């Protein structure tokens, strides 16, 4: 069932530019490759550097997420790949071919827009058929693909509705079907879930993952929502101020943030001043303010021995009685109960705070009380040294 659908779609994809289509499959180059791409908007005093010498390689069949706060350049990068804007420097390759100079309509890349941008003068089916019609596909093929797409996004009954007569979640599905129908090499998604309410958003996250699995198309997803990025992506690129700070799997990004911004932007974290004592490849030993030495993971190009900042996730530490097992000691300032877990706020020094998040067991109420002196044990290899 799944495979036959893919085959139908695969046939659709071959036509737009026949040359080079075959050769790309043999050595299987990256789906998208950006080489030293810069984009500057305006000039003189209004100059805004949206992208600053960005290089990134997105693999075939990958769910790749560009994550960052608004204004970090993630949407600009997406628009450069789509062809709506052109880079001032650098080039962009699509499956090995330089597409920097091509207009959007000559790139085998489709976009799901933030506001969906469905054509209001066409029906649901008319919207989905549009891309195929523009590629001059035969009518029978268009009809078949539109039906397939409607089935894929589970919208068969709404085929002949006007796009203004369907709900936001349904519009989202139509936008997806419309962008997938011409079977692009890469699907770009520009914060497609931001307009949906929480419940629908969760549903669509699963839906998107399913669509990506079923179609085998490379997805490039833009979001500012770290949770969305962590749950859906194969790899994440964290962006800030027009630069990519770190690229890695969700687990790498979360457990081993390389920079302060990444550690701060994704999840809660504790920052610790420490001293790097010894380093061997990526494993090192750091001395904490308490005088204790613990093992830590180092970033790729870490600083030399000396003062460093280490981060420890709140759930990678435990509150213990002060003593040998405690890496740090402090005064328990506050206990916040969250149902499934409890957050312990520990005051280490005059200004330093440390938050520990522990899962609640059946009977541990009253084990520690605010104001008491406690120790913090850090899980082995939970400490990560930052690059700065």
């Amino acid at each position, binding site marked *: 069932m799944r495979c036959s659908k893919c085959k139908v779609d695969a046939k659709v994809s071959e036509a*737009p530019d026949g040359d080079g289509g075959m050769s790309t499959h043999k050595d299987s180059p990256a789906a998208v490759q950006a080489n030293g791409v810069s984009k500057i908007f305006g000039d003189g005093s209004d100059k805004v550097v949206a992208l600053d010498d960005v290089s990134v390689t997105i693999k075939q069949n990958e769910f790749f997420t560009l994550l960052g706060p608004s204004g970090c350049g993630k949407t600009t990068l997406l628009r450069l790949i*789509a*062809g*709506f804007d052109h880079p001032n420097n650098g080039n962009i390759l699509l499956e090995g071919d330089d597409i920097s100079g091509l*207009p*959007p*309509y*000559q790139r085998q*890349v*489709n*976009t799901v*827009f933030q*506001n969906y*941008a*469905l*054509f*209001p*003068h*066409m*029906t*649901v*089916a*008319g919207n989905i*058929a*549009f*891309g195929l019609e*523009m*590629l001059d596909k035969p009518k029978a093929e268009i009809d078949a693909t539109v039906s397939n797409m409607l089935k894929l996004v589970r919208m068969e009954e709404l*085929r*002949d509705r*006007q796009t203004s007569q369907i709900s936001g979640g349904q519009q989202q599905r139509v936008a997806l079907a*419309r*962008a997938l129908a*011409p079977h692009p090499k890469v699907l770009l998604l520009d914060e497609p879930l931001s307009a949906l309410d929480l419940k629908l958003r969760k549903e669509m996250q699963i839906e998107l993952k399913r669509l990506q699995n079923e179609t085998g198309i490379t997805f490039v997803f833009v979001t500012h929502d770290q949770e969305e990025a962590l749950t859906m992506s194969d790899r994440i690129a964290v962006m800030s101020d027009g630069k990519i700070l770190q690229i890695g799997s969700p687990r790498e990004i979360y457990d081993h943030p390389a920079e302060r911004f990444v550690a701060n932007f994704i999840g809660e974290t504790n920052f610790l001043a420490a001293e790097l004592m010894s380093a061997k490849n990526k494993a090192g030993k750091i001395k904490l303010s308490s005088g204790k030495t613990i093992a830590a993971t180092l970033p790729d190009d870490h600083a030399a021995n000396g003062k460093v900042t280490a981060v420890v996730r709140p759930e990678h530490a435990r509150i213990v009685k002060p003593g040998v097992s405690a890496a740090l000691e402090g005064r328990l300032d506050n206990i916040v109960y969250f149902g499934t877990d409890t957050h312990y706020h520990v005051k280490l020094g005059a200004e330093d705070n440390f938050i520990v998040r522990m899962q609640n067991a059946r009977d541990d109420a009253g084990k520690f009380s605010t104001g008491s002196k406690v120790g913090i044990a850090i899980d082995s290899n939970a400490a990560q040294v930052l690059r700065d």
Partner: protein
Amino acid sequence: MTVIAAQDSPQNIARPAAEIAAEAERRDIRNRWLLSLPAIIVITTCAAGPLLIVLVYSFLTPGDYGNVKWIFSLDAWVNVVLQRDIFDDTLQWADAHLSIFWRSFKLSSMTTILTMIFGIPTAYFIATRTPKRRDLWLFLITIPFWTNLLVRTIAVMEMIRNEGVINNLLMWTGIIDRPIQMMFTDFAIAFGMTYVYLPLMVLPVYASIEKLDFRLVEAGYDLYASRWRCLRRVILPLVKPGIIAGSILVFIPSLGAYVTPRVLGGGKNLMFGNLIELQFGQGRNWPLGSALSITLMIFVMIALIYYVRVSGGERKHHG
């Protein structure tokens, strides 16, 4: 309202609520009529009244020195399209009238198409400027509106007459050695009307292009539509309401245009408006003039209904 009614007379308190509500409603209706009275008076005396007079006159007999005799006659209506042979009294098609109808329709259509050709790109150009620039361009487009129609028409004449700007320029550059006869032709009328009515096309089209969500155009490009196909499949369908409004605003006054054909077309290229004017002037046939006026109105209504059909039925064609 019920509160006010209750204050008027204390015994109201004893009355059933339904009665009070009914009185309040009567009062409401009376106030509504009173407030809309000025508008009703203006509409009846300035629009409906004269129209009724024209309708009645079209069924009367022409007076000897203009005006009408109060004798019922269908002659005026017969004469709109037919004429009685002066020798054998047989009825024939009034070729002169029919050719004037045809010319009016042809020239108005040409004017509408020409204003579209020049107006839509102009409107697109203005709508895609920065807001500050837009205001300047719109201002420039509306400047001719401040000038008297006759003066503008004479300005056009100055351009196209035999010793006018265009002919002088062409002769000076040596492209032609004799002036091209442009005055007193259908071309002159279409040219003049296009110039005069261009803003009526530009403004509504501009308004709808300005409202156009350009992300939809990007979506079109993204889905493999070239510039031309994006224009045809995305932009034009979305700005169509503006184009239809502009076409109505241009076509209808063109059909009844009077000054421009008179000045630029000379005596021999009459249009509908001139024919009507002739009946009330030299022709001294007020009933025929009235019947022609109403015929024109019917034509306009047919054109309007056609436009509404075209714009309303469009939705069903997609998908």
